[in-house]
């Protein structure tokens, strides 16, 4: 009796699990059954290995650049005319990240014409990647209506990218999401390195050094969602870049934070010293240029 009941139940779970697993794009991790975090959008038997990845917004570096009163430099942006030459999902996703960062940079500097051109590039790539829901006509209309109100435009743009990220994760297209984040991160470091090359700036040098943790997350996320080894070349380049970042000295000193319950606010009082010399900086700049060039060349 027991046997007849157990058999169909067992078969059911095996079959159900198989049906779900057919929808996932991340087959490399199906062996990691004992891990902590379950992806709600994946199958019951498809577990990703307890890791969530976070890459700080590239817009934050654009805000820093603007706060330093550095003039806008349009020559640093990826040529918007090449947008049509990116035909694979891989190139489209990476360059969407790059154009997204360029869009944020030009928006902050109130470069109306440039902004509209880069909005058009972003729109084209989001359409190619099936992300129209996030960058729909309502978004485009609101973005154009707010032209000149850079804070509102940045808010709208960031919300649209978040919606696209959510859509991709729900649709089990995490590899595409990872590539967009990677492209955005590379472009922000590229712009920072180029501006620092033109005129050395302590804050920008420091910001470049502060990317150590983010680079580590970028490499891990690309390894995690490496469909058919498509990210192998990029990972190798970024691991080489990581060797340069590892030469940066960071000294952290703890200090107790201060919390205001009423304001729901905690202030951190630690210190973090970052030592980055010209040789390391130049190494990072050269490597970033090469990585970006491989992405932006069609």
């Amino acid at each position: 009796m027991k046997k007849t009941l157990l058999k169909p139940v067992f078969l059911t779970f095996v079959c159900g699990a198989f049906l779900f697993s057919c929808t996932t794009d991340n087959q490399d991790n199906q062996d990691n059954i004992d891990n902590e975090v379950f992806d709600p959008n994946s199958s019951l038997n498809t577990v990703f290995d307890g890791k969530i990845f976070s890459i700080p917004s590239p817009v934050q570096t654009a805000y820093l650049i603007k706060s330093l009163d550095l003039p806008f430099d349009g020559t640093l942006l990826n040529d918007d005319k090449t947008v049509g030459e990116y035909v694979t999902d891989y190139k489209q996703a990476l360059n969407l990240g790059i154009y997204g960062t360029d869009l944020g940079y030009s928006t902050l500097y109130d470069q109306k014409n440039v902004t509209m051109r880069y909005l058009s590039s972003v729109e084209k790539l989001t359409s190619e990647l099936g992300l129209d829901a996030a960058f729909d006509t309502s978004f485009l209309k609101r973005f154009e209506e707010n032209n000149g109100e850079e804070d509102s435009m940045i808010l709208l743009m960031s919300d649209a990218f978040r919606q696209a990220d959510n859509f991709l994760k729900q649709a089990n297209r995490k590899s595409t999401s990872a590539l967009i984040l990677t492209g955005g991160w590379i472009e922000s470091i590229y712009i920072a390195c180029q501006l620092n090359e033109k005129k050395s700036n302590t804050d920008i040098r420091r910001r470049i050094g502060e990317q150590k943790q983010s680079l580590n997350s970028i490499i891990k996320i690309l390894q995690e969602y490496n469909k058919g080894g498509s990210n192998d070349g990029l990972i190798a380049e970024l691991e080489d870049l990581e060797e340069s970042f590892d030469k940066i000295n960071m000294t952290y000193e703890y200090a107790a934070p201060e919390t205001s319950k009423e304001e729901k606010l905690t202030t951190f009082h630690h210190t973090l010293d970052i030592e980055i010399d010209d040789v390391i900086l130049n190494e990072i700049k050269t490597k970033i240029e090469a990585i970006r060039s491989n992405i932006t060349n069609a």
Partner: protein
Amino acid sequence: MKSRPKLKRLDLTSQMPKTMKTLILSTLFILVTGLSISQDCERIVRDCEKLLKENTNGSDFISDGQVYTAFLDREKAQFNTTFFGGTTYRIAASAGSKDNFVIFTIKDPQGNILFSNKNYKNAPYWDFKVIETLPVTIETELDLELKVTGCAVMLIGFQK
């Protein structure tokens, strides 16, 4: 008048072995459950978006462009990120609107706990003023006294 031939009702289920019926019904159950989890997560993402806009004193928090989602089952989700100096961040977390189900804890590179909303009735959002840049580890878990399993969503926003 010719009478129509009576159509024999085709009852597939009656011809199926019991094992097969159980198999199909259970598979459907799993599919529906999976879909329901996904819909729950979507609803929670929308709840969480509202938390990013609450009590901002006129200066909105800009999303970092990512949605952090995990299906937690008596376990913790953990990730690393960097808080840049000169910025105020908001972390918003939700696992449903009925209660404050999510506990989040921020640790520094030495493993010191810098903040846990557990000490503040699992407050669904909290702001962090960051004077100097800091690589942090964020841990998320469900308050097991309130909920043992479910979708948890976290959003990070910053003020320029």
